[in-house]
């Protein structure tokens, strides 16, 4: 009966109750919309970076990242590759040779990192092959060694497809080496900073120009991103004399963005719950003050304080139970639709691209988040109704019957 009365009580002033319910629902919807968009944005940036150039884990010689010397190659290359080939967690491996180079064309000059790759291997790890203008991923070329430049570099050097560029770098013997490449295709990722300083050549060409037998980098892609840290630890245990980093270590800014997103998420949750709490406190306080006389009557005729307290708490729970699911369902539907369709931000495409984000954002929220919000909404409702309930308990029955309207 107490629960029944509580439920009926919230409809006494249906306009006010609906206003509160809609306000709370909109709060939850708005919060989740912002959170999902921000999370989707962060995830997209992270996935783009992982799938375009970082991969999940990279292995280097301990000195390579610090000094970038040609001779700092991976010692246990064969052992590492055997280990990786045997692991079922690994979905792709790419060995790379790198050279910090100076690139020249008839139209200009620039600094560039030459990435010597084996195209078939690289396809299993990154998606650069999908970002090509013509789709020529080292299949079609004659005589001169091929090179794939980024759109930015191509424009900067005025080097179109089929033009020749010259790269100079220091080889493994410490001598200057100069070599000519023919531009066979142009790539464009969503990260203009990456595009500006990277070019791709075939590993065998760079090896011969470099007079090098080893490799500088092993890029690993795992079947499941959640295994990255555990697999990295395993690799470190097996190959302690190498620099083994996850994508968080290679591109810490992505990890920071991820952490920051979590922090923003918590802040947003707190804001949503505070709005909910104040909404409920305000409504319930008004409800208690308006019903002073009735509450006094209930205490007079024998309804004990525990039951009066429970009735107020139940009223808040009902408000939360109506507004919470409404907000969550609306959010779920909207997020599901836009997770497939995407939110088109092409008007800000160039700005987004400069930070490695595509112009279509796919909102994302983990399902567990909906459960967490549901529980938090109910807990907040209970906590925020305590103050109005205590107010109700402090009423003096005879006083309220004598004075209240």
């Amino acid at each position, binding site marked *: 009966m107490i629960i029944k009365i509580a439920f009926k009580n919230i409809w006494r002033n249906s306009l006010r109750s609906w206003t509160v319910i809609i306000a709370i629902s909109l709060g939850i919807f708005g919060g989740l919309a912002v959170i999902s968009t921000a999370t989707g944005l962060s995830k997209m940036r992270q996935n783009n970076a992982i799938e375009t150039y970082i991969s999940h884990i990279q292995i280097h010689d301990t000195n390579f990242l610090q000094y970038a010397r040609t001779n700092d190659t991976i010692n246990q290359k064969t052992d590492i590759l055997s280990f990786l080939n045997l692991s079922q967690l690994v979905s792709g491996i790419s060995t790379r040779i790198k050279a910090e180079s100076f690139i020249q064309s008839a139209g200009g000059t620039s600094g560039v990192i030459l990435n010597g790759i084996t195209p078939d291997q690289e396809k299993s790890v990154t998606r650069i092959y999908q970002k090509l203008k013509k789709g020529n991923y080292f299949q079609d070329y004659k005589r001169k060694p091929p090179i794939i430049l980024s759109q930015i570099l191509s424009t900067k050097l005025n080097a179109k497809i089929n033009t020749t560029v010259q790269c100079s770098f220091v080889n493994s013997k410490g001598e200057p080496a100069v070599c000519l490449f023919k531009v066979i295709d142009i790539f464009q990722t969503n990260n203009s900073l990456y595009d500006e300083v990277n070019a791709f050549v075939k590993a065998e060409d760079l090896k011969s120009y470099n007079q090098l037998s080893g490799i500088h980098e092993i890029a690993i892609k795992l079947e499941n991103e959640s295994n990255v840290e555990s697999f990295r630890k395993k690799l470190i245990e097996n190959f302690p004399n190498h620099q083994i980093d996850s994508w968080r270590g290679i591109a810490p800014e992505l990890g920071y963005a991820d952490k920051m997103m979590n922090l923003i998420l918590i802040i947003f949750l707190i804001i949503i719950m505070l709005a909910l709490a104040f909404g409920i406190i305000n409504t319930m306080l008004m409800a208690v003050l308006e019903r002073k006389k009735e509450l006094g009557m209930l205490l*007079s005729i024998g309804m004990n304080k525990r039951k009066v307290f429970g009735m107020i708490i139940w009223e808040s729970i009902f408000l939360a139970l109506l507004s919470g699911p409404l907000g969550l369902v609306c959010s779920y539907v909207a997020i599901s639709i836009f997770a497939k369709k995407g939110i088109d931000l092409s008007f800000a495409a160039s700005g987004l691209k400069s930070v490695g984000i595509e112009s279509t954002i796919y909102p994302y929220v983990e399902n567990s988040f909906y459960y967490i919000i549901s529980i938090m909404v109910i807990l907040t409702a209970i906590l925020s109704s305590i103050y109005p309930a205590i107010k109700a308990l402090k009423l003096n029955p005879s006083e309220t*019957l004598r004075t209240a309207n």
Partner: protein
Amino acid sequence: MTYQSGDIKVQALQNIDLTINPGEFTAIVGPSGSGKTTLLNIIGGLDSPTKGSVKINDTYITQLHEDELIDFRLHNIGFIFQSYNLIPVLTAKENVEFLMLLQNREEEFRSERTLKLLKAVGLEDQIYKRPNEMSGGQQQRVAVARALASKPSFILADEPTANLDSKSSENLLNIMQKLNKNEKTTFIFSTHDQRVINKANRIVTIEDGKIISDTSQ
């Protein structure tokens, strides 16, 4: 008994010595501000006297803690208020049933007694109506049925006819009188309505917080 009104301490009642016997139909009369409602509140355990005691059956209610007092009221005292004070979101039936639910009575007992009481107050055809769908007189009759629902030792009614027209007042008084005669229910009510006073078999007159006369008729 004193209470605070602004900065002034008001002595509402003094030297009250009153015994109400089972089955009595007692009217407490007196002008406004004479202390009628305060006396009823003290008898009902809603207010505590600054001095003295109230004994109901064998219990000194003035010695009970707040929670015990609420429980005591639930099982021993029925209340009828001037402005009915029904629970607006419940039907007549639910309002009457409410106290029995608080007493954890069986459903069968509750339904049977609710119907019996609503019939006794002439509202058997209004059981599913809410207070706002009933007249003042009907609401007050529901309040009488509710007051009786918990099988109290006695019923306290604070000016029960004050908000009713003469016909409804008459009707209500007849019901209360019938319940008093047939069921031996004890009624104590405050009033300055002469019609109510005429029906009472004992009249206690209060003035300035003191009993100035106590007569039976």
